[in-house]
C-alpha cells in the first residue's frame, strides 16, 4: 500500500548504525569497560549500517523494477 516499508527501515538503521559507529570511534577506550573490552558500539554500528544500506538498496531496486 503506497509505501515500501524497506525505505523507513533502511533509512532508520543507516542513521542509527552510523551514529553508533561514530560513538564507538570517538569515545575513548574507557567506554568499552562494560562490554568486556570490545568496541561493541563500533562493531555493531557497522552491522546496523550495512543492514540499513542493504534495505535501502532493495527498496531502490524495487522502485526501479516498478518503473
Amino acid at each position, binding site marked *: *500500500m*503506497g*509505501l515500501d*516499508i524497506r525505505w*523507513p*527501515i533502511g*533509512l*532508520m*538503521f543507516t*542513521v*542509527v548504525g552510523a*551514529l*553508533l559507529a561514530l*560513538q*564507538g570511534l570517538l*569515545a575513548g577506550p574507557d*567506554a*568499552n*569497560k*562494560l*562490554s*568486556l573490552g*570490545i568496541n*561493541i*558500539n563500533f562493531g*555493531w*554500528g557497522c*552491522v*546496523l549500517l550495512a*543492514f540499513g544500506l542493504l534495505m535501502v538498496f532493495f527498496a531502490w531496486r524495487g522502485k526501479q523494477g516498478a518503473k
Partner: protein
Amino acid sequence: MSHIQLGGIDYAIMAIYVAAILGIGWTLARYMKTSSDFLTSARSIPTWVTGLAFISANLGALELVGMAGSGAKYGIATSHFYWVGAIPAMIFLAVFMMPFYYGSKARSVPEYLKMRFDERVRALNSVAFAVMTIFASGISMNALAKLLNQLLGWNYHMALWICSGVVLLYVLKGGLTSAIYTEVLQFFMIVLGFAPVVYLGLKDVGGWGAMNQSLQTVATNPAALNLAEAGKSYGPNAWTSAWQPLLAGPQNNPMGVDWFAMVFGLGFVLSFGYWCTNFLVVQRAMAAKNMTAARNTPLVAAVPKMIFPFLVIVPGMIAVALTSMPDKDYRIPPPIVSQENYTKAVEVVKKANPAEPAAAVAAVAEALGVKVRGEKVAALVASNTKTKLSDEQIHKGIYNSIAEYDYDGVILSLVKKYCPPGLLGLALTALLASFMSGMAGNVTAFNTVWTYDLYQAYFAPGKSDNHYFWMGKFITVVGILLSIGAAYFAAMYNNAMDIIQLVFGFVNAPLFATFLLGMFWKRTTGTGAFLGLFGGIGGSALFHALTTTSSNVDAAGRVINGMKGGYLAVVSQFPSEMAQNFWLAAFAFVACFALTLGISLATRRTKTDEELKGLVYSLTPKIVDHEQAWYARPAILGVVLLVCCVILNVMFW
C-alpha cells in the same frame, strides 16, 4: 539500585526510532480512504511484511521480559513454548485454516464465526475478545511505565501517556497498515537491539559449553542459588536439556510438568487455541494481498519464532550461570526494595551484635521487607565488626544477600551490565518497540472487532462506509484511552487483574474445540457451538475450583490462596501451577468438544451445505497449488519447517 543514566546518544537513538514510526503513520495517512483501508489494510500487503508483523504483534514486551525470566527459572525447556507451543499450530493455521479465514472474505475471526454458526457465537467471541485486548494492552503498558520509572527514573504517568500517545498517533494516521508496517520495523529493532547483549553475555560466561557446565552444577544443588527449596536436587541436565527432564516426570524438572500435559495441554490445546483463533495474530495474515500470501504469512513468521529462544531464553540461562560465578559480580536482580528500606537495613547491620546473628538476620529481613540469606547477612555483620565497612559496601552486601528474585528484571540487568552508552540506547529502544508493537496490535484488533462485529452488527447496521471509517478512527482513540485506564487499574488493583486474567484463561481454553469442529465437521450446529463453548468455560472454572497445586495446601490440608484454585474442594493436586494450567486447558477442550459434538447431533442444522461452502473443509473445493513453484507452496513449506522444528528438539533433547 540507582537509575541508569542515559547519554545524549541514547536519547538520539530513541528519538530517531520515534520519528521513523511516526513518519510511517504520516506517509500512510493519505492512502486511508475507506473503512477497509483503515481496519483491514484492504488486503494489500506482501507476505514477508505480514509474516514479520504476525510475529511482532505476538512479541510484546511481556513475552520478551517474561521468557528471559522463564529461561532463568526453567532453562532451555522454556523453548517448549516455541518449538512445541507455537510452530506446529502456526503451520496448521497456514495449511488448513487460513483458506477459510481468507477465502470466506470475513473481516475478522468473530465474523467468520457468524458466517459459520450464528450471531450468538459471534457476539460471545467478539465481546470477550474486545475486553481481553483492552486489558492485555493495559497490563503491558502498566508494566512498561513501571519499568521506565524504576529503571530510568521517568515519571510513571508521563511514561504511560507519552508511549500511548505515540501509538495513538501512528495508528490513527495509518490504521492497520501503519501498525503492521511499524511492527516490521519493531521486529528488526528488537532482534538487532538484543542480539549484541546475548553475544556479550555468552562471551562473558565463557561460551555455550561453559554456560552449560555451570548450569549442570547449579541443577544438582539449585537451593544454593535459591532456585528451589533447600534439599531439592535435579539431574545435571535439568536446565540444559529440553526433553529428558520432562520425560523423567514432574519431580525431575523445574517446571514441575509431565510430558503429556506439555504436549497435549500446551502443544495442542493452548497453542492451537491461541495461534489459530486469536484475531490479534490472524488479522495480520488476513491483511495479506492474496490467498497464497495469507497462507504463507504464519510460515514466514515461524522462521524467526523458531530461532527466538536463542534471543529471549538464553539471556535467562546466562543470568543463572553468571550468578553461580562469584567472580562475575552479578546476581539475578532481587525484587525492587526502596532506598529508604535499604538505608534502614544498613543501620541495622551497623548496630547489630555479631554474637547474635539470628536476631540481626531477622531485623535486616524486616527492614527490607523480603527474605534474606541468613549466612550472608551474618557474614556481613561479622566482617563489619572486624573492619568498619562503608555504607556503600554494606548496601551492596545486603543487596547480594536478598534471597528472592525478580525474574522479570533479568533481561534489563544484563543490558545494564554490558551496554555502554549507544548500545544502551539501542537496547532500551528495542524494549520500547516491543511494548509499542504489543499495544498497537491489540488496539488495531480491537477497533476492527468493535467497528465490524459489534457496532455495525448490533448498534448501527446499514450506514455508509464513511460512517464506519469515522467510527474506526473514533474507537481507536477510545481504545487507547481504555488501555490507559486498564493500565491504572492494573497498577492499583493487582489482585483484581489476576482474577481478570484467570477468567480469560477460562474463556480461551476451550475455544479451539469450537473452531476445529466448525471447520472440519459440517454437522456442527450454532446451538452446539454456543452451548459447547459455555460448557467448556464452565468446565475450566469448575476444574480450577476443584484442583490446586501441592504448594498451595498447608499441613492441615487447607487451601492457602483461593486464587490458585481449590476454593470449592481439593480433588487433585498438581506439582506446579504450570501443570495445573496445562491440565485445565486439556480438560476444557475435551469438555467443549464432547458437548459441542453431542448437542450438534441432538439439534437440527440451520445452515445448508450451500451456505457452508468456503467455511467447512469438506464443502470447499481444495486449493490447487500447482501453479506455484514448489518451494512457495504452503504444504511443502510447512513440512520443511516441521522437520526443522523436530531437528531443534532433537538437538536440545
